[in-house]
């Protein structure tokens, strides 16, 4: 399947292992990535906070670039925050033709136009809804045996439900659970599964921000998770890069590896932890997880 692929800013900045691991797993999932390298930042909610029309116009430009990719089935995000910011803009653009026309008027300077009804999915949604869990299971070369994984969804792909199309038929707020199971891992439920990592207020109230990250990491440790998996690089920054700081704020030792979703997929699809950029993490999964007993060295199921 061919997708117009928006990697976001942070996957090419402070979490390069996310961009690299997505590139590594895409061919194994039969996904052809056409990178939207001309598109700009989604605004992450901050540009919308500043000026809604500006955020919507910049995102309409990205959507128009995605619609111009020949043969692409849909647009794909690997950053939850981008997905949320895109969904918010698209909701307004699709809801009102006069508003859409006005914004397309601005895009006309570049010869671009957004047509209502773009399909824009996060990798997580695409795995379940396009590839399918049964199909995904068939692609697994090395099940995540003995790996206890705590899902951490991040806010932007679970709320608000109505905008994100979450309903009884599309239980997108359960998908990470299902994917971990499909890959052969054990799901660990803990209090922070659908909570906020705290990243958006790290410059405004660092203590409250890191207290959120620290609590979720601590809760996952108490629930005996080996690692967390996140579909959002901004969550990764607060949960991994800031983990030493979060540890100080909550007053307990934390050693919780945090994997990006493509890294978890890559492990099950047979790639090595290092190949997936896990040596780049602040809390190295390779140092915390006993790979001789889990996944890599685990007995092959009969």
């Amino acid at each position: 399947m061919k997708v117009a692929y928006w990697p976001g800013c942070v996957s090419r900045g402070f979490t390069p292992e996310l961009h690299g691991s997505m590139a590594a797993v895409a061919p194994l999932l039969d996904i052809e990535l056409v990178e939207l390298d001309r598109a700009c930042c989604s605004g992450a909610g901050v540009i919308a906070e500043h000026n809604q029309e500006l955020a919507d116009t910049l995102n309409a430009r990205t959507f128009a670039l995605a619609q111009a990719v020949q043969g692409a089935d849909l647009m794909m995000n690997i950053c939850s925050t981008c997905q949320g910011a895109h969904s918010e803009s698209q909701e307004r653009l699709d809801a009102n033709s006069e508003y859409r026309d006005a914004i397309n008027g601005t895009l006309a300077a570049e010869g671009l136009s957004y047509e209502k009804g773009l399909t824009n999915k996060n990798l997580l949604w695409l795995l379940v809804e396009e590839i399918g869990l049964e199909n995904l299971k068939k692609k697994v070369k090395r099940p995540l045996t003995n790996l206890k994984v705590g899902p951490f969804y991040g806010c932007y792909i679970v709320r608000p439900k109505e905008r994100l199309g979450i309903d009884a038929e599309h239980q997108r707020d359960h998908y990470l659970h299902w994917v971990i199971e499909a890959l052969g891992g054990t799901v660990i439920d803990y209090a922070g599964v659908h909570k906020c990592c705290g990243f958006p207020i790290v410059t405004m109230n660092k203590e409250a921000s890191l207290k959120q990250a620290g609590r979720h990491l601590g809760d996952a440790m108490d629930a005996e998770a080996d690692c967390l998996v996140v579909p959002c690089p901004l969550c990764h920054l607060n949960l991994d890069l800031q983990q030493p700081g979060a540890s100080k704020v909550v007053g307990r030792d934390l050693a919780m590896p945090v994997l990006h979703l493509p890294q978890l997929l890559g492990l099950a699809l047979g790639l090595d932890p290092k190949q997936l950029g896990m040596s780049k993490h602040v809390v190295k999964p390779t140092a915390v997880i006993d790979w001789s007993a889990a996944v890599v060295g685990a007995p092959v199921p009969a």
Partner: protein
Amino acid sequence: MAEYTLKLRRYDPQSGEAPYVEEYRVELEPHRSVLEAILKVKNEQDGSVGIRCSCRAAICGSCGVRINGRPGLACHTHLSDAARTGVNADGVTILVEPMGNMPVIKDLIVDMDAVHWKKIQRVTPWLLPKQPVPEREYVVPHANMVDVTQTMACIQCGACVSDCLSMEVDPLFVGPAASAKAYRFVGDPRDAEQFERLKDLAEDPHGIFDCTHCFTCIDACPKGVAPMSQIMRLRRVATGDHHIVDRNNGERHERAFVSLIRGYGLLHEAELLPRSWGGDSWFGKFHPAAGRELLDSLPSIAKAVARRKVSIRGAMLGHRIPKADLKAVQGIFDKIESKGRRYELNLYISGVEDDDEPVAAATSTSESESA
């Protein structure tokens, strides 16, 4: 008729006993409400169950609870929907707990005075009229009153407060309900103290810049008030119209973010943080406030460099989109930022257009004056 397992979290602080969960079996039709099931238990099985309720029609806001982990009104939640809610939902079991972020008085009744109403009072929830007060009534433009109708829909049930994730780690946070109430008056043209109200909420370390942007309150609200959207509007008016530079880095963070996207097309993370503390220029990192924060973050930065997560070159130069595209993006910034007015489309007011029947945007696009 269907049979449900109703699990109620019981707690009497005066008893000295720890909270516990008690199970009841209830037979009711699936379209009946969770409140009806609780009242049936109270009437027929256990009169000691504590629940606060009144109108039973989602108007009074008395019966806010958590149902299978999600906040809502017990009277406004069908049993069938409740039993399907939550990751471990089995279609039969419904766990009802008291709302969060507030102390429990008994069972499902929380102390709204201790938290919710205190925060509402904190935002001066009444009109401070412009002088001189006219002899007859104020005449307010229709569009201005429509603009605040969304916040006026609040029934003070506390569902948003219950699950506010900022309040969970910072109980002093002014919170979603009070912020929505603040916009009720900030958006009212009769009020004389728009600037003071915003300055107060922006400068408060637990004010509008303490919201973690998690959307929880938007989903929690049974009335579509979207408190988080109101907080974003408060921020927009505070920074965009009044240029309030607050001590919490809220305005600086927004300004730095926007100007970095204008300059690079992509986020230059290494510049964003120092500029949020030290001011929006390359020299921001040399400001003492930025210096202190950078020093504090040094262990993380050093580790990121050592692990080759971040290169020195990448941190210095950032990344940007191709030149021609950057020029186009900057053209969009120039065009929109040079407008005298900001345009906002609030779907709560305008509704969603039917494919066959376009609605006129002219009446549904709210405009806000730029200073």
